[in-house]
């Protein structure tokens, strides 16, 4: 629902980094999004195309890598990958004391610039 604000955050970070590197054009932006965030990939691409116009990222492709969720059990140490719905209980010992390792990421990895 707030993909526009997220896209703005990506654009401003990418432009700052590109300018710091002395670039005049951004070709690609690589980002990672955890599946447990409320960010929808389609909506993000839509927002990206709307806001990049008139900037040095005018033609920049947004490459989105969706990252699966992983949790670890505090009781038995078991580590497992899961979707949005099945991370609360350890599949090995049925314990509820679990720690989320990945799945809530929302980060820019790199940019490709000229």
């Amino acid at each position, binding site marked *: 629902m707030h993909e526009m604000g997220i896209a703005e955050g990506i654009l401003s*970070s990418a432009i700052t980094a590109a300018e710091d590197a002395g670039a005049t054009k951004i070709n690609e932006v690589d980002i990672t999004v955890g599946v447990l965030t409320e960010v929808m990939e389609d909506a993000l691409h839509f927002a990206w195309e709307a806001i990049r116009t008139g900037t040095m990222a005018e033609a920049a492709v947004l490459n989105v890598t969706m990252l699966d969720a992983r949790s670890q059990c505090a009781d038995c140490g078991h580590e497992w990958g899961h979707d949005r719905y099945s*991370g*609360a209980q350890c599949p090995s010992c049925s314990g509820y004391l679990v720690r989320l390792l990945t799945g809530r990421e929302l980060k820019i990895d790199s940019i490709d610039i000229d």
Partner: protein
Amino acid sequence: MKVDIEQRILAANDELASANRSRFADHGVFVLDLMASPGAGKTSTILATIDALRDRYAIAVIEGDIASKVDAEKVRAHGIPAVQINTGGACHLESAMIRRAVDTLDLDALDLIIIENVGNLVCPSDFDLGESAKVMILSVPEGHDKPQKYPNIFQVSEAVILNKCDTMPVFDFDEAEFTSVVRSLNGVAPIFPISATKGDGVAEWAEWLAGRIEAAKAEAAS
């Protein structure tokens, strides 16, 4: 040329949230971020919570809405300081808005700040405000299948309030099914069935909150 950045996209929000959090800790104030759909009973629950805890704690409320100041006025009519934030269309609160609102409050004189987030079951769960705890409300008329549809908000909440329990017979709400799905998403959050406007169950919820406030005070003093 490829350049590595490795930066959180919401870095600006997260930094301000951390600053808010240490400011609250310095003043020993417990801050609750209350999230729910429009009309689930956030304001009603806040008023009932105030009534349950006002003899013990000094309370203020931050009201987040897309527009209008009716909720802040309801709280002020209850004799409690309230700050209204209008997000102007944004579907969630961000940490910068909380910082501005908190600037108008006397933190030294407060024990508890309750934030009413914008009515939305989706994005408030992604935004750290610097709160001490996020808690959500689901109301019975919304249906017992909502945890399946909005898992994220149930996962980030430290407690789940089930409001409007007085309407359960009318809506064929399956409380056992609701509880089991919440458990599959969040193994530890307590569930408090309440009727905010009638008062049922509010005492149990308020006791849990008081326990959290005391724990935060003990930590601040140590």
